[in-house]
């Protein structure tokens, strides 16, 4: 809802007296419709067909009293948080290792890291959990459900963090890399000492949003009999036949924790922008998979158009490459696919000309003039 004023500014004129009246009428009638819907839901809860009154205190009391909290919800919550915390630490380590691995100059390391990351992003977390649960049980690992939850979440969320690291590095202004190479650092040194530390600050808000995903996904553990908050609330509910009520309590607890994390993720970008030359990723894209493009580049370009920090002068860095497909090696090739760079209008690629210059498309016998070596790929 933070963007609401901006959106209405895009879409609507300031309403006049007539439209204000219409808006008021529609507003109240919609509010009444929602109120009626709410009453209908409550009536259904109060008097379900051949069932008992779900609003009665007899059902809510065992779901809310001290014993329920001390014996079920709090131990369950502790199990959930324990798995979350370890999974978060693990995913950050995994993500940094593989994210940097995907950016290293060595082709072998780069491709192995790439294959592992893409595989882990494509396989559903529940599949990982079931597999590791059985696998650890065969190996005789103590607490196999716990480790299955942790390892699965590390693999999936770690690969998402790896992509965030990669896109964070891709979003840095190219001058950062050029400057460090000019100072005599090697590619790897520039990556490790200049680019990745800045990328980490740029990706932090998006990574905090990913924490919400980790916390939500621990609930999958209840399917493999991990005694987390959801599993405990189901157990309590089956004791007193008030599963609806216990699930509602568990849902509220999950919501509160996730909501707090989401607010933290919204607050962070303001703090982090001071520490990096890259654009901090405010927009967090939903869980992603193979070859995801993201529209953060377009959002960022749209935003840059109106924000001129130096009083009208266009910003002096390229808008090439944002999003998790960014790769610092290919910025020359991809930048024009990603958006028009208004600071370098002369370097816009002419795809039609390139197509003609490309040998496969050339007619036999005709000698068409070649436009350099495939456009502006190498002559910058």
């Amino acid at each position: 809802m933070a963007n609401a004023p901006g959106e209405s500014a895009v879409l609507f004129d300031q309403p006049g007296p007539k439209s204000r009246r219409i808006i008021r009428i529609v507003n109240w009638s919609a509010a009444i419709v929602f109120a009626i819907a709410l009453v209908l839901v409550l009536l259904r809860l109060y008097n379900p067909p051949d069932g008992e009154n779900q609003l009665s205190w007899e059902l809510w009391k065992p779901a809310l009293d001290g014993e329920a909290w001390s014996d079920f919800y709090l131990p369950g919550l502790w199990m959930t948080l324990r798995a979350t915390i370890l999974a978060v630490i693990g995913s950050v380590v995994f993500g940094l290792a593989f994210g940097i691995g995907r950016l290293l100059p060595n082709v072998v390391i780069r491709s192995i890291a790439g294959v592992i990351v893409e595989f882990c992003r494509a396989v559903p977390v529940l599949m990982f959990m079931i597999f590791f649960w059985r696998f650890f049980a065969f190996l005789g690992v103590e607490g196999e459900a716990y480790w299955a939850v942790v390892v699965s979440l590390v693999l999936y969320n770690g690969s998402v963090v790896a992509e965030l690291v990669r896109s964070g590095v891709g979003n840095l202004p190219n001058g950062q890399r050029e400057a460090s190479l000019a100072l005599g650092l090697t590619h790897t040194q520039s990556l490790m000492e200049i680019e990745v530390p800045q990328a980490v600050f740029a990706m932090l808000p998006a990574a905090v949003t990913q924490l919400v995903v980790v916390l939500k996904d621990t609930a999958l553990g209840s399917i493999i009999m991990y005694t987390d908050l959801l599993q405990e609330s189901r157990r309590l509910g089956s004791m007193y036949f008030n599963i609806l009520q216990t699930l509602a309590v568990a849902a509220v607890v999950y919501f509160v924790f996730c909501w707090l994390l989401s607010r933290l993720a919204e607050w962070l970008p303001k703090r982090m922008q001071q520490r990096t030359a890259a654009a901090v990723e405010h927009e967090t894209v939903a869980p992603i998979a193979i070859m995801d493009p993201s529209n953060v580049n377009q959002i960022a370009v749209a935003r840059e158009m109106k924000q001129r920090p130096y009083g009208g002068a266009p910003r002096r860095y390229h808008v090439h490459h944002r999003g998790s497909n960014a790769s610092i090696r290919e910025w020359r090739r991809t930048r024009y696919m990603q958006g028009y760079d208004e600071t370098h209008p002369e370097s816009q690629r002419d795809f039609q000309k390139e197509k003609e210059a490309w040998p496969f498309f050339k007619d036999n016998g005709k000698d068409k003039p070649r436009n350099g070596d495939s456009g502006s790929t190498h002559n910058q």
Partner: protein
Amino acid sequence: MDGFVQLFSDYNIPAAFLVNIELTLWSALFSTVLGVILVMMRISPITSLHKVAGIYVEFFKNMPLTIIMVFMVLGAYAQLKLSFSDTFATNFFWLAVTGLSLYTAAFVCESLRSGINTVPLGQAEAARALGLNFWQAATQIILPQAVRGSVAPLGNTFIALLKNSTVAAAASVATETSSLMSEMIEYHADLIVPIFLIFAFGYVILIIPIGMLTTYLSNRLAVRR
């Protein structure tokens, strides 16, 4: 190797994937409809619609899908007696579709909204300066660009939906892939790694084309600004 081949004749693995694909397609349909309604409510100047859509999105974004699925079966079906069919399998399938659709609609709404955010303010100002009224500006200038901008996040949402369809196991859909994998591992413990790889690569194969299509479409439809 014999055991590996035997797996394919003993279990109908493609049928399990088909159940997941069906779950995905139905949920994609319903969540798109609901998501479009939500985003229209959310960008409207009418406060009550705006607030309700905001609460809906915030609620489902911060709620584990598993708890929604469990609620569909143990709460909505067992306690509130909401059911779609007398056949257990059909009933659970549609309960799972309902849960997935309600959950995914929030993310569809967010994807479409981020598409609207990509349209620069100047576009609306220019449209107004040309004398277009609200409806003309919305349908001819802003929404076409917004839809193009939301291709990529929508693709991501549907990829996530396909992966989330395995959570239907929590809603007692016993024929989908994660349940089948669990069952196969139980009876063929010695082949646990090959079984996992069959299903894992099944998903990789399903997801790569969607990802490539999304990348292609979002580059093809990108508005060059």
